[in-house]
């Protein structure tokens, strides 16, 4: 009896182990494509591709925070089960170095002719070989409240507002004017981080570039914080989202809306500095303020995020995978389809942007937002982006925060920042070397 029970338990264990494997997607069978992505967009592209070509596409969406680990683990073992992979710009350099993205040189001529410059540049590795393409551009802007602009500055003209955000000094002046009228210029000082690369990359020729512009950025961030010119509602907090529809309590922090003190003093946020996908977020949260926003330029042109698509170097179905990538990124009809379907995303093909430049966006006071974003995307200087940006940017942000809160004076904070850069990247020369 004991032997029978033991054998039965062993058989159940073996069955459960067998069930663990074999459930992951198998690429290549019956021409099915397997796509791993971190954005929901590719589900729509996949469905459209199947509709147009009859090829089945299986899309798995992985959370952005988990995506690099998943790709490193899977493709690090040269797994060919995935055909199409993606990456955000800050991930691409590492993925290229690891050899995960296949060569897409056959699309080089098309890409350089059709796509916005910075998208084409970001898709190349350090040897200039094309490895990824994107269907979208994500240029940034200052998204401002037209009604508050008219009240405080007497105009809501984008060109006039752009002047108010053209330098860090102008931003400090604008913040003071808005504060005098009872408004906050931004949700928090983190909005300024998009302008950190205004005039030089963080690292050039192996040396950390602490330019006057970056020091002005630090001074502006400290000034806005210590004078309470911002609402202290961090990006992505409940209060930050709620501010798009109207007023919010000052100093809400990360508290949920029902935790906020109903009797606390309130303010309204004048502007949000975000890439073009931010405009969609504002449109979707503006409620009665829909139509009350405009887009203007900031200290410099910038971009943020964006999904770049490539082919897994180890895929057994590279031909079909490359056709899918070409379909998503280099086909004008598909770009026009996506522009209409997404109702707000800015596509990467210049001719399609040009064809839609007269579109008046009712969510933004009938402003020609495609024309604006097309011009901003064209002005992005990709040579200012380096693989060090994320780590060095985070360390600089912590230095700024220390000065804002009075924990360190500016000189000590900067010295600590240089030490931190040195600790992480000993090969970079810093001002304290």
């Amino acid at each position, binding site marked *: 009896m004991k032997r029978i029970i033991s054998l039965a338990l062993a058989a159940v264990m073996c069955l459960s182990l067998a069930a663990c494997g074999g459930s992951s997607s198998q690429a290549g069978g019956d021409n099915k494509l397997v796509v791993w992505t971190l954005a929901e967009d590719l589900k729509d592209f996949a469905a459209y591709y199947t509709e147009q070509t009859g090829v089945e596409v299986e899309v798995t969406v992985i959370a952005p925070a988990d995506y690099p680990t998943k790709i*490193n683990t899977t493709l*690090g073992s040269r797994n060919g089960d995935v055909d199409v992979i993606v990456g955000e710009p800050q991930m691409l350099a*590492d993925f290229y*170095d*690891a*050899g*995960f993205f296949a060569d897409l040189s056959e699309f080089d001529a098309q890409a350089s002719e059709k796509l916005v410059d910075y998208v084409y540049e970001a898709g190349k590795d350090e040897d200039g070989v094309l490895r990824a393409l994107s269907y979208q551009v994500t240029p940034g802007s200052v998204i401002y409240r037209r009604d508050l602009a008219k009240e405080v500055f007497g105009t809501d003209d984008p060109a006039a507002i752009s002047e108010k955000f053209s330098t860090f000094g102008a931003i400090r002046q604008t913040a003071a004017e808005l504060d005098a009228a009872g408004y906050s210029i931004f949700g928090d000082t983190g909005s300024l981080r998009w302008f950190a690369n205004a005039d030089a990359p963080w690292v050039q020729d192996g040396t950390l570039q602490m330019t006057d512009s970056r020091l002005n950025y630090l001074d502006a961030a400290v000034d806005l914080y210590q004078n309470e010119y911002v609402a202290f509602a961090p990006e992505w907090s409940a209060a930050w989202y709620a501010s798009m529809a109207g007023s919010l309590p000052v*100093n809400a*922090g990360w*508290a949920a809306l029902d*935790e906020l003190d109903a009797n606390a003093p309130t303010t309204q946020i004048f502007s949000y500095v975000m890439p073009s996908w931010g405009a969609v977020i504002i449109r979707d949260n503006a409620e009665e303020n829909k139509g009350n926003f405009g887009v203007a330029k900031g200290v410099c042109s910038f971009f943020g995020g964006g999904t770049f698509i490539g082919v897994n170097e180890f895929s057994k179905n590279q031909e079909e995978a490359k056709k899918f990538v070409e379909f998503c990124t280099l086909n004008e009809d598909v770009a026009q389809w996506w522009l209409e379907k997404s109702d707000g995303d800015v596509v990467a093909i210049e001719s399609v942007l040009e064809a839609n430049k007269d579109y008046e966006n009712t969510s933004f006071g009938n402003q020609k937002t495609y024309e604006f974003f097309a011009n901003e995307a064209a002005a992005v200087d990709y040579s200012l982006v380096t693989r060090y940006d994320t*780590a060095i940017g985070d360390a600089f942000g*912590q230095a700024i*925060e*220390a000065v804002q*809160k009075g*924990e*360190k004076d500016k000189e000590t904070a900067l010295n*600590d920042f240089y*030490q*931190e850069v040195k*600790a*992480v990247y*000993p090969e970079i020369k810093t001002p304290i070397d």
Partner: protein
Amino acid sequence: MGKKNAPAKHRGPNDVDHYGALFCIPFVVTFLVFSVYPVLRTFVMSFTDYKGYGKADLVMLDNYTRALTDPLFWEAFVNTLKMWGINIVLQLGLALLLTVLFNDMKYRMKGLSLFRAIFYLPNLIACTSVAFLFKTLLDWQYGSVNQVLLKAGLISAPINWLGGSGATAQAVVGVVGAWMWFGNSFILLMAGVQGISRDYYEAATIDGAGRWKIFACITMPLLRPIMMYVAITSLIGGLQLFDIPYLISGTKGQPGRSLYTAVFYLFNMAFTNRQMGYAAAIAFVLFAIIAVCSFVAFRLMNQKED
């Protein structure tokens, strides 16, 4: 008739000589694969510039030289010692106080089993939950601690426990650690005290010794080995402090870098900055430090016993 004419030993079906080795195989294989191999692989990695992907070039002792001369690593190490220091003083102090109370012959406090279980409960809660609990309680705007202190009139403005001074934040982590582990220390000290012969206490009482004299001359000296054991094991664990400061600081080590511990620094190097080779070297430097501390502590403990 001699031994050479004795029949060959017959192995029956119930012979258990080989079963012992067979039963050990699963553990040995698991241990080799999941413990020994990763340690060896990490050691080899510490001599390379491996980034977690792609090829790894040999850099020999460069990573170790970098670790030994890295001011941020040593700053993180000193932070670790500070937080552990606050923890061990509070942890042992509270455990000792409770041990004395529960062991007092005059008071004869009841409910030892119940209290022992209650004191041990914090040790059973997952570190993640503890970190989020204290982060919520100590929130400087909406946290319960500040609300209670304000209502009681003990403070006039909310205290920024976790975002103001680095020393305050380190003290908070030390107190949280003490809260989690004092129950464990209490159990060990109680076991130590109950191992002391009652004859010593009775003889001292007959000789007219007071409560504090008995504590200083009998309880403390005889408890010293247990206390040393608690201190050493706490040191070994304390030098690997990571989860509470990591979570309570929102993964950034703030305020300033005050909550950056040595293992926190290692984690960031490996998984944020993708410098696996250097992180591996830091791991082995830490291992060497812990090994030396443990060796010295055990020698001291053994000397005292002698």
